[in-house]
């Protein structure tokens, strides 16, 4: 119903567009002079106001109506069951609502039936009011803009203002979402630190990570929340991944940009980018089922002890996953180094290799560094591969052949584990926040580096 109304307003906007445009055209030929704004601008102006009025009324009434109904029904329920708590009241309300909508509810009694009846009536009324106000609003907006069409009306300027504000609102939504997420991270992190009495050194430097063992609701044992083994694992696996991805990706990019002829390039580049489209969960079981046993068997035949879940297996496969990010971005920046610089170097008798090493790569360096930073961020944040291939136990070791765990794996373990959310959320959010800060610092460092080594070309 709401969706149909949404479409109806859209249709009304189209009608308003056509009508306003026609009126403006007619006005222009009748008055025999040029309009300030062209007919389609008048149409656009009218359509925009119809959308604002119609959709605005729809959204506001739906939200407000929902809240009003909720409050009215809750008031009735709490009057009927003064001895119960909010938990029970909510249960009654949801039962009544599902009954009213024809679904099966957990149990029925007279109260629930009464509430269900009230809900049906209120909901019906809300729908009618919403429909009426929306349509009247849209029509009024259309009529008002239609009447406002004159020779000197500044419809173009006004509709451009509306569109500009609309764009600004969208940009604000994106920013506010980010800020909201960061604040919720900070909030939970502060709660977690309160639970361990702000013993930050134990969190940052502790070597035991077992936050949920033997704790009660909302409480934490500061001696068991050391993140060192987790970050050691993350860094080790990231390092292995980058040792695979950076050379392969960068050299592939150099080959594609400067040596491959266009036919090879036309095949190889899309295929490499296809690698980026493989879901990481596929890489994950590839690592766990194929690579890890292969490493273990190879290790055995060489007389080296390799765990069946190892940081090496996860890192290698993660490196393969990151190759296309590095190669594709580096290829773009290397290709965008102007041909004139290559010509200049070649014309001085430099070989192609010298040209690439001494002119092209320095000029492309900022882009290459940001490609690598993006790769590192991907590696740090990657979860599926490490969950399957690297192990779960927080094991502090420098040996890549042993099982290790990472920050992201522990977040997964906390959230999907059977500890209730309230206790598990604290450490999970705190790990997420720490990860976020780490990535942020790394990006800032990378930008610093880029600014220092930048060789600008025009």
């Amino acid at each position, binding site marked *: 119903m709401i969706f149909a109304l949404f479409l109806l307003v859209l249709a009304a906007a189209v009608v308003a567009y056509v009508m306003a445009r026609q009126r403006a055209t007619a006005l222009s030929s009748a008055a025999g002079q040029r309009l300030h704004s062209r007919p389609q601008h008048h149409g656009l102006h009218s359509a925009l106001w119809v959308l604002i009025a119609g959709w605005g009324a729809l959204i506001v009434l739906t939200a407000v109506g929902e809240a009003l109904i909720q409050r009215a029904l809750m008031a009735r329920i709490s009057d009927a069951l003064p001895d119960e708590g909010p938990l029970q009241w909510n249960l009654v309300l949801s039962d009544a609502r599902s009954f009213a909508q024809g679904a099966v509810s957990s149990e029925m009694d007279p109260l629930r039936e009464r509430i269900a009846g009230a809900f049906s009536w209120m909901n019906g009324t809300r729908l009618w009011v919403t429909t009426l106000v929306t349509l009247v609003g849209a029509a009024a907006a259309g009529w008002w803009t239609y009447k406002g069409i004159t020779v000197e009306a500044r419809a173009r300027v006004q509709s451009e203002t509306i569109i500009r504000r609309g764009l600004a609102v969208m940009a604000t939504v994106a920013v506010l979402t980010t800020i909201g997420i960061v604040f919720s991270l900070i909030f939970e992190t502060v709660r977690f630190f309160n639970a361990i009495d702000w013993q930050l050194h134990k969190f940052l430097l502790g070597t035991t990570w077992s936050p949920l063992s033997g704790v009660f609701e909302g409480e934490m044992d500061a001696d068991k929340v050391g993140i060192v083994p987790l970050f050691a694992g993350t860094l080790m696996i990231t390092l292995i991944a980058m040792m695979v991805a950076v050379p392969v990706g960068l050299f592939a990019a150099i080959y594609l940009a400067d040596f491959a002829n266009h036919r090879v390039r036309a095949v190889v580049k899309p295929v490499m980018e296809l690698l980026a489209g493989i879901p990481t969960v596929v890489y994950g079981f590839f690592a766990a089922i194929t690579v890890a046993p292969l490493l273990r068997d190879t290790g055995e035949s060489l007389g080296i002890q390799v765990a069946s879940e190892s940081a090496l297996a996860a890192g290698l496969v993660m490196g393969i996953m990151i190759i296309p990010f590095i190669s594709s971005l580096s290829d773009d920046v290397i290709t965008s180094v102007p041909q004139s610089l290559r010509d200049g*170097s070649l014309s001085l*008798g430099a070989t192609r290799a010298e040209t690439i090493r001494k002119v092209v790569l320095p000029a492309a360096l900022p882009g290459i560094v940001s490609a690598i930073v993006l790769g590192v961020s991907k590696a740090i944040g990657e979860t599926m591969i490490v969950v399957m291939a690297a192990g779960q136990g927080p094991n502090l070791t420098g040996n890549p052949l042993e099982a290790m765990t990472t920050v992201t794996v522990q977040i997964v373990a906390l959230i999907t584990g059977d500890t209730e959310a309230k206790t598990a959320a604290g450490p999970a959010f705190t790990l997420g926040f720490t990860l976020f800060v780490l990535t942020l610092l790394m990006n800032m460092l990378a930008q610093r580096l880029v600014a220092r080594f930048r060789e600008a070309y025009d």
Partner: protein
Amino acid sequence: MNDMRLIERAVDMDDIKISARNVQVYYGDNHAIKDVDVDIQDNTVTAFIGPSGCGKSTFLRCLNRMNDTIDVCRVEGDIHLDGEDINDKQVDPVQLRAKVGMVFQKPNPFPKSIYDNVAYGPKIHGMAANKAELDEIVERALRRGAIWDEVKDRLDAPGTGLSGGQQQRLCIARAVATEPEVLLMDEPCSALDPIATAQVEELIDELRQNYSVVIVTHSMQQAARVSQKTAFFHLGNLVEYGETGSIFTNPEDERTESYITGRIG
């Protein structure tokens, strides 16, 4: 008097630096240069003129095999530098380009310091045994590029920060730093203002003392000002080639005359 002229001619004949015979260039299916024969003399400025798309730049790029870098481009015919076929399999284009320098239409300094721009070629070719020698080479090249006085106090500043005219003179200095024997210039002044153009033209005239200079230009006045020999290209053909004075005052071919007087082009 006539005897003197004869002797001069004889010297000229001996001093042919580059001789091209029957040169054809194809871009894919497009026949861009047709049957070009030309002799370029040493210590002379030779100008290539002609309307846009006539192939003069393409022909210029044949002389240091820069067309090798374009996949679809194919060059046929004989081009001899000091009697040696430059398209021979034995000839390394890298070594050829060390002998035949090039300056491009748009100034293309590397995103490096002024010093490093000029030192780039000498370093690659191992021309300096130590820093002092390199300093000397750089200074000499910058002086020859007529830009030393403007940049001597800021050799560490980026080359890309110079003005357009300074950048182009820096590129000329960079090209002469490797001690080439021939200097190819592809419309070196088209991105420059009149003052910078005058400076570069003056420089070209000085460079003639040591090099054979070949310059592609759209400006007939420029060709008349700086060159001793002029070649007129039209639709991939070399229409006329001779003393600059006679090309401009007394052209033999009517297409040359039409172009010079502004009727085609």
